[in-house]
């Protein structure tokens, strides 16, 4: 039985990684998960300098989901390279570093600093709805997405994964722009912009007013987008959005994803990522699937 997958030349031993921002750099989850059992660990977005993020409250619960407006708080690339990458290097897993920035230069800066590190893949977050500059601005305009993709690609030593925003009219247009710009892979979806109001206090539930909705609630939307993008481009896709069980992960793979990320579900069960790895194996055995690739995009 073969569960390994190939993302732009990087072989993950299984298709399961975690969604950026839901797993830190793995340190805190190491109590609950054997990180070496995951196909890859995807780290929280990191910028060229430390970011303070948004004021609290930063999260709120929504039906079968949550909303976050962390605002990409991060300790900056220096600390990340010194502290987090060496920690992850101890484990037998691939490392996907999620990169954020306020300007194209910021992104390029981080990508260059990562060139000679143990990072295996770079995931470029051009789809965060919770920051004023950068983030989603690049992810909602095909021209801007194309531009930043070409620049990041030119600077990057590792393969680059462009992370797409679902807050668009036509996700395939964005996927094609990233492909044309030289992306090696795509990941989707980032969170969907939402809002929650505390009606008794007449206040927004998160200080940032809006936040990004994630969790099982958005899964059908994410599966649809992965399916559409898989039909539209040739790039490998890391699918995510509400994956909470092995069945959910397989749904994304059948929709056309090569790998999958487990995000919000880590908050409901901190061991779930590893359980999903196991569950995919069980499914393959029970259904007589030899190679995970055999079910990729198998519905039409």
């Amino acid at each position, binding site marked *: 039985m073969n569960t390994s997958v190939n993302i732009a030349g990087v072989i993950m031993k299984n298709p399961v990684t975690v969604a950026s921002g*839901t797993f830190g750099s793995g340190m805190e989850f190491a109590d609950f998960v054997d990180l070496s059992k995951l196909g890859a660990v995807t780290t*929280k977005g990191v910028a060229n300098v430390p970011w303070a993020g948004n004021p609290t409250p930063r999260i709120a619960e929504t039906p079968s989901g949550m909303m976050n407006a962390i605002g990409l708080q991060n300790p900056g690339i220096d600390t990340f390279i010194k502290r987090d990458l060496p920690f992850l290097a101890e484990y037998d897993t691939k490392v996907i570093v999620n990169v954020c920035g306020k300007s194209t230069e910021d992104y390029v800066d981080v990508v260059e600093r990562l060139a000679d590190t143990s990072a295996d893949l770079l995931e470029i977050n051009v789809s965060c709805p919770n920051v004023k500059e950068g983030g989603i601005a690049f992810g909602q305009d095909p021209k801007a997405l194309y531009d930043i993709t070409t620049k990041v690609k030119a600077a990057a030593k590792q393969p680059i994964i462009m992370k797409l925003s679902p807050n668009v009219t036509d996700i395939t247009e964005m996927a094609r722009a990233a492909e044309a710009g030289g992306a090696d892979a795509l990941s989707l979806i980032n969170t969907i912009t939402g809002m929650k109001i505390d009606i008794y206090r007449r206040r927004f539930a998160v200080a940032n007013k809006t936040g990004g909705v994630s969790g099982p609630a958005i899964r059908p939307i994410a599966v649809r987008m992965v399916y559409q993008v898989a039909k539209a481009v040739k790039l490998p896709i890391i699918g995510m959005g509400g994956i909470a069980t092995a069945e959910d992960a397989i749904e994304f793979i059948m929709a056309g994803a090569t790998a999958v990320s487990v995000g919000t579900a880590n908050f409901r069960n901190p061991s779930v990522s590893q359980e999903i790895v196991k569950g995919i194996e069980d499914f393959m055995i029970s259904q007589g699937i030899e190679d995970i690739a055999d079910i990729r995009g198998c519905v039409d």
Partner: protein
Amino acid sequence: MSKSKFRAKVIEKLQLTEDIFSILLYVGDKISEAVPGQFIDLYTDDNSYLLPRPISICDVDRDKAEMRIVFRKVGKGTELFSRLQSGEEVDIVGPLGNGYKLSDESLASGKVHVLLGGGIGIPPMLYLAKELAKRGVARENIKTVLGFRDATTFLTEEFEKYSEVYITSDNGEAGIKGNVIDGIREYKINADYLYACGPGPMLKGVKAYAAEKGIPAQISLEERMACGIGACLACVCKTKEIDDHSKVKNTRICKDGPVFAAEEVEL
């Protein structure tokens, strides 16, 4: 990889007031090491509410492998917990966070420990009072000031077992009128060490009082949480100095707290 979510069995549920409930849980060997000030994450079985509810540990009986929590019904999660019956089970992750630090110096004889609990910040103080007593602090040197809204008090008799109890209430129906800081002043309590848990305004008051009097104070903070283990950065609090984890003066309440030295954090 030593930890995981686990299912605990409800041994007993008591309703203490109209909206305050106490649940005794059988927790096996899972959280026997829990110390006062730590909390657990409780999950509902209703999958539409997916985030955990952080609840402080109110008591632990290591021999019986029992843990007690006391909470107020304020929303859907706590409402579902309030309906739990003996024999039913509930999902838990924990113990989480860091508890109150009890230095050897502070435990030396004669030192006066003053515990300040406001509203639903009262329960963790019970475990702390018990622990101080267990560590040899005499009853007269453990003083608890409990702040309620009105005449509807709870847990006070249990605090009497380990400590001298002083009551305050917002409307003056029980004890003196005012908050716990009004209490500490009016009851003329002299503290060597302060420990507090309660709503934000109360903690601000404690921080100011501690600074004014030069007394070391440990306070337990609250914030909306998602992961509960320090990974998601939902639950941060501003600190005076740049902390080592965030590099931006944003300490994590769930992981680096919930108990902090009052002077370290900005409220």
